[in-house]
């Protein structure tokens, strides 16, 4: 399997961004139905997935679709086409949510004539409930291949500490790492710092966050913007 260091978010409603996403050389393309898609463009984003997934699959690119927690059933339905590697599920709270979504994916595989079990599931933890249940959540479906730390400073309102880190951040990263490694899943995350994270992060800040995460045991992370792909690939490369 190719390394999966950089998971680049590509807004699925933006045909130009989708067409050009490979120029940035991400290890993984994540077609987004969530944060980067405005509500008014959601239907267009879903409608474009069949074609985008097919093309990326033919180009041997690892193509995932990030669904929105509250609309995940319809989002998965829109994403399930030949060429899809997997689904990214942000913010699971409980094991049943993951097993239910896994079953939904299985039903869709059957309906769309895909090989049973071929579509992976990647979980991004974003809530206190999710982190408390991390190990149980990660083993709730045999499809889960990666377990990650989402934008928890925002989703969990973790403010900055005097030592230029977010409150609880290292603990939650390590808790995720242990659960992922226990289950043979890829640990995803970066040690984002206050002032350099998300779409705001500089290239240097991104490289540092990735490098520190690699030292902590992580092997890849989500890139909110195309500019982050190169520093993330570099940061997660073995020294």
């Amino acid at each position: 399997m190719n390394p999966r260091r950089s998971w680049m978010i590509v807004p699925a409603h933006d045909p130009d961004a989708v067409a050009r996403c490979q120029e940035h050389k991400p290890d993984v393309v994540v077609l987004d139905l969530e944060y980067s898609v405005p509500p008014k463009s959601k239907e267009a984003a879903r409608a474009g997935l069949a074609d985008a997934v097919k093309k990326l699959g033919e180009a041997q690119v690892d193509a995932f679709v990030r669904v929105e927690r509250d609309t995940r059933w319809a989002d998965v339905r829109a994403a399930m086409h030949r060429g899809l590697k997997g689904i990214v599920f942000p913010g699971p709270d409980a094991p049943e949510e993951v097993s239910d979504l896994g079953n939904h994916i299985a039903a869709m595989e059957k309906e769309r004539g895909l090989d049973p079990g071929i579509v992976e599931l990647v979980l991004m933890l974003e809530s206190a409930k999710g982190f408390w249940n991390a190990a149980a959540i990660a083993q709730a479906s045999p499809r889960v291949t990666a377990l990650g730390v989402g934008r928890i400073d925002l989703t969990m309102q973790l403010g900055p500490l005097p030592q230029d880190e977010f409150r609880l951040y290292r603990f939650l990263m390590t808790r995720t790492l242990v659960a992922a490694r226990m289950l043979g899943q890829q640990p995803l995350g970066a040690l984002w710092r206050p002032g350099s994270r998300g779409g705001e992060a500089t290239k240097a800040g991104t490289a540092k966050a990735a490098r520190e995460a690699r030292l902590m045991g992580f092997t890849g992370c989500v890139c909110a913007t195309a500019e982050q792909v190169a520093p993330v690939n570099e940061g997660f490369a073995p020294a």
Partner: protein
Amino acid sequence: MNNRVSRCAMFVTPTNPRFIDKAWTRGGDVYILDIEDSIAPAEKQRCRTLIRESIEKANKGGASIYVRINKPFVDADLPYAVWPGVDRIMLPKTESAADLRHAHEIILRLEKERGIPPNSIELSPMIESALGTMNIYELLTATPRKIYSQGGAGGYDMSVDLGIEMFADFDQYTFPVAYVALAAMSLDIEATGGVFIPNTSGRVDQSDQAAKQAAAFHAAHIHHAGALHPAFIQPLISGLTPTAEEVAWANKVVDAFDQLTDAGEAVGRLDGKVIDKYEYKLAKRTLDWAAACAAKDAYKARALSRAQAA
């Protein structure tokens, strides 16, 4: 009244008239009437008998009242601690669900006997040991009573139990603090504690330390702090209250996000900063907290002027 605002919960000893008689003039959000560590064994019984009259003395300035009881004397302490006017019972060295259920049942009986609405007095398990830390989830879910999770953030007892030197210049409570906080957050229970401020002085009375602590807590979005010395009260209260600038910014964020939503957008920019559902939630939280602080301050001001006039 406004019990959720406890920017500064200050320990007072009911047996010391100098402290208890003046407490109401010092402006604390909360006074904790202590029957535990600040009271010598020979004084415990006298302290118990002073609790009821101490409530009315300490809350004259509009403060909420908590009572901290003794782990080995739960049965003996509670009949002296559960009275109208008491907002919360603090249960030190809580280690198991059974500890919490035992206290809860006695409080419930006393509430019924004394005309206090059942389950209205909150219960605060203080996590001060390895066992309490590891049992946190089950003890937080042990009773139907409203729970505030307290502790895990160091302190004398926790340090002794874990064999930690507490006056060190690095944070050695990362695991217990985070584990307790995560359990509480996963249950939507408010938790205190969480930001380590180096203090190698061995002293707890320095008000510059209080301002530093308040700034760190405020930045980390933590609203509650405790104090052992009155010099901490004002720095903590002002430091944990949103500033006028923060409130103005939060209002701008809410307005900008409402406009975005109307336009069918989810992410936008305001003065060069990203505005999205997360910033919106944080802004709402700031406004909500600012309003709660203002209500508490107004309540305290009214109580204070009544008390001064009397």
